[in-house]
């Protein structure tokens, strides 16, 4: 609701206005509510990014919190030179890569599979629920996709997630990873080549 009210104020701006940057600038000028609006707006995509990158729900939650704390603390220094999301994901990537570097030895076995909301039901064609066999096959399928992404080096993994799931452009990914655009392209190319080879044997998603 706050976000709606705040973004309503941007209605008169140009169509390609960066809503995040506008909110950040207003926050910079002292509108504290704009910070809450930024949190509400970017919490979900940021959590998804962290979750894919670090593969641990608790850790990703803490990292997201850290990202927003950094946003708050650096409000004075913020300059809208790039898209707000580029700046935001740069902070997030920096924190996540630091975390992964520091905890490289620890193998998180946390499962990112869907919760067992469907669990406990016998196969029932009448209610359209997939049978237990299909659910198990889907789980295994997801595990293999997850493993393939997890097997990538950290920077490649971050690049793929930013490109594939956050739908960022090369230039933005390059800024987030602090690389040149050409280096980012070749990083992504290598990552996709590895993934292509790893997922080659994977059949289509069951069900």
């Amino acid at each position: 609701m706050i976000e709606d009210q705040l973004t309503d104020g941007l209605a008169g701006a140009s169509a390609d206005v960066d809503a995040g940057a506008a909110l950040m600038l207003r926050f910079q000028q002292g509108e504290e509510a704009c910070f809450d609006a930024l949190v509400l707006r970017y919490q979900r995509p940021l959590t998804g990014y962290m979750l894919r990158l670090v593969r641990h729900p608790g850790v990703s939650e803490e990292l997201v919190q850290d990202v927003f704390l950094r946003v708050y603390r650096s409000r004075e220094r913020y300059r809208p030179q790039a898209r707000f999301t580029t700046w935001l994901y740069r902070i997030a990537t920096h924190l996540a890569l630091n975390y992964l570097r520091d905890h490289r030895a620890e193998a998180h076995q946390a499962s990112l599979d869907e919760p067992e909301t469907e669990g406990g039901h016998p196969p029932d064609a009448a209610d359209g629920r997939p049978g237990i066999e299909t659910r198990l096959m889907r789980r295994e399928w997801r595990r293999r996709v997850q493993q393939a992404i997890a097997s990538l080096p950290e920077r490649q993994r971050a690049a793929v997630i930013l490109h594939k799931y956050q739908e960022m452009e090369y230039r933005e990914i390059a800024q987030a990873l602090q690389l040149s655009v050409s280096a980012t392209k070749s990083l992504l190319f290598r990552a996709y080549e590895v993934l292509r080879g790893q997922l080659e044997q994977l059949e289509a998603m069951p069900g």
Partner: protein
Amino acid sequence: MNCRQVRQSWMDAAPPVAAVRHLESCARCRAAWEQHTHMQSALDAWQPETRLPPDLTLRLRRQLALEAKPRRSVGSRIRGWFESWDGVPHPGRLRLAAASGTLLAAICLGILAWPHTAAVAPAPAPARGVVRDLQALNHDRGMLTNFPLLSTSAGNTAGAASSTTYAN
């Protein structure tokens, strides 16, 4: 376009026409394209469920409030303590004296309340005690000599010594 350029162009949202034409003539890239689309659909289907903490904004605010609380140094705490006397309606010197007096009283109380170690009284010199005991014993024996019936058994052995003592 060579094979690498063609495969790189697949990462773009809209690959160029030349890349599409390349597939018609290159069997290896066609096979790779099949694998690429398969990989893309596999990646598309991987959507981990993101559980958002409902109280993130609240937690952030709490954390920021903690950070905003200024940490006072020892010096500023002492200054603050003296400043707390400002409300007392007395001249400055009296206030300072009162503050110093309180401090002194606190120090005295601290000293008094400090657990004392019990003073150890010097033990009596054992030699002197032994002498006193022997003198008492000799006195008793001297008394016994006045009662011959009682001192018959002990008189012959110790009597001489005791009489010697008394003689002294």
